[in-house]
């Protein structure tokens, strides 16, 4: 019996020839990530462990990005705690304001993630890095503390599910729509404890940015990891970023899957996930009349170059509806600069939007775009839970960047095709 890519990576890091789903293993991790929400808790737990140093100061990434630049005094205290820990332990990959970006946009960009690696992060969207053919999964702060001290962690080897996309994507359909399609199909607990493997010509055709978006939302189906086998695009992406050795793994032909799903891209149009679960998807042609008050384009899901370019294509030469607040948040400083050089920032501002420094801010109702009771937001983020972006009686509609931009112009949920005519 063959192994899946997820099983091969876990086996290699556990020093075993093979592992089987359900098996509990202890594995060495290549990177441990924390942010300004989760790292403070991990640091306090770390200090209870009775160790003096971290296992490897080069293999820990601390990225204050959720409430940074500090949104209030308490957030400032949390960021300070992380900063002081980073200084004390001489953490190589600590990212201060000015260098920092949204963690899951930043780490791949900085070459801190490579194919075949095992990464844990005290953030549920750590699964993003599966787009590079790594096994990456979210854990809590206590797990992060243990891994910072020992460089290893226990894992239950997950079963794998395979999602194959055939055919060619329709216009304006991207990684966001493919992953929403899966979540709409299997539900928010459809992949609980599972590794979700994405394959087929529809995935091969996706850019790296589109693949990051897909793997990012594996957790919204309950997945432990999202994963895509590396190909020429992956290697091209890591070529100038990663200067250490790494392993390329792919699933064996006879690997075993708990479930294999095949989809035809001819059946998929841009999707919108209605409140209050990412599984409540509807094709954009069937959303009806849903007026919106705010549009957010950004986040670890859709804050990358391709996302901003798509949004700008729609917004170019047009105006945001006067009843809509458009907030655009580039994922990292490098993305921000690139967007500036390409004239995208000018496009957003001329259209009537605001552009913010990188932050998770509005996605989780932190700051920089909080909703009042009764308000609706179309957002390229990943969760539309009750109260996610502010008041418990506000609503979030998840969509791709082109749909969010089109909706900002229309003042209601709208398709890009409708705006471009």
């Amino acid at each position, binding site marked *: 019996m063959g192994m899946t890519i997820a099983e091969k990576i876990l086996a290699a890091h556990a020093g075993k020839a093979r592992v089987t789903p359900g098996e509990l293993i202890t594995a060495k991790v290549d990177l441990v990530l924390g942010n300004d929400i989760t790292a403070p808790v991990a640091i*306090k737990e770390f200090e209870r*462990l009775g160790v003096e140093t971290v296992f490897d100061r080069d293999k820990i990434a601390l990225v204050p990005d959720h409430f940074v630049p500090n949104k209030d005094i308490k957030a400032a205290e949390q960021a300070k705690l992380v900063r002081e820990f980073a200084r004390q332990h001489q953490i190589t990959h600590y990212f201060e304001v000015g260098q920092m970006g949204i963690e899951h946009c930043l780490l791949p960009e900085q070459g801190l993630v490579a194919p075949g690696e095992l990464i844990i992060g005290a953030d549920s969207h750590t699964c993003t890095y599966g787009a590079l053919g790594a096994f990456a999964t979210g854990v809590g*702060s206590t797990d992060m503390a243990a891994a910072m001290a020992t460089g290893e962690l226990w894992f239950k080897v997950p079963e794998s599910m395979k999602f194959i996309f055939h055919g060619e994507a329709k216009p304006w359909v991207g990684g966001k729509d493919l992953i929403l399609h899966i979540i709409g199909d299997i539900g928010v607990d459809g992949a*609980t404890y599972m590794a979700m493997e994405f394959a087929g010509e529809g995935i091969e055709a996706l850019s790296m940015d589109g693949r990051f978006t897909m793997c990012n939302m594996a957790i919204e189906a309950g997945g432990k990891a999202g994963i895509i086998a590396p190909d020429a695009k992956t290697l091209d992406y890591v070529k100038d970023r990663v200067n250490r050795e790494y392993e390329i793994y792919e699933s064996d032909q006879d690997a075993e899957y708990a479930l294999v799903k095949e989809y035809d891209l001819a059946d998929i149009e841009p999707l919108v996930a209605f409140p209050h679960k990412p599984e409540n998807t509807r094709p954009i042609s069937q959303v009806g009349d849903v007026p919106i008050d705010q549009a957010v384009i950004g986040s670890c899901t859709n804050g990358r170059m391709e996302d901003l370019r798509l949004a700008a294509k729609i917004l170019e030469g047009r105006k945001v509806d006067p009843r809509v607040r458009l907030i655009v948040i580039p994922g990292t400083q490098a993305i921000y600069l690139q967007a500036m050089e390409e004239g995208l920032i000018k496009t957003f501002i001329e259209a009537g939007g605001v552009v913010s420094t990188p932050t998770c801010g509005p996605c989780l109702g932190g700051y920089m775009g909080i909703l009042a009771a009764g308000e609706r937001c179309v957002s390229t983020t990943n969760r539309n839970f009750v*109260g996610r972006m502010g008041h418990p009686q506000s609503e979030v509609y998840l969509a791709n960047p082109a749909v969010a931009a089109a909706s900002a112009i229309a003042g209601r949920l709208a398709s890009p095709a409708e705006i471009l005519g």
Partner: protein
Amino acid sequence: MRGKAWKFRDDVNTDEIIPARYLNTSDPKELARHCMEDIDPQFMEKMSPGDIIVAGKNFGCGSSREHAPVAIKAAGVSCVIAESFARIFYRNAVNIGLPIMEAKEGAQRIREGDMIRVEPEEGKIINETTGEEYQVAPFPPFMQAIIAQGGLINYVRARVQESR
């Protein structure tokens, strides 16, 4: 563990357990004040220490915030019973020592207000109100070791000291 049951639906997410607007602190007492606020704003006024949360499928889905099980534990909830748990919440609860019980039948049959007694060693949940008894899915032995040590930090600390 013995207390009154408070029932919740499927897919209770960590934003509902502890909204992100309160995550600018990690103080358990402060987090507890807002426990379950976005799904039941009166929860903290109604519940008494020792009470039990009983929920449907996929309890604790969403973010990895350990603040969620911490808030529940600090609120005085003695145990969470659910049909199933989201993966990260499950790990976090074990790691911080919040008792959780996967018990499908129990989660479905227990009604709000029932008096519930949990016998973790025997893997049993007893509904004192109705007299029913439900089985709990056992933890793998490795996780039992973490639970017996009172959480992951104690478990790792013991191992680190052994290896010296």
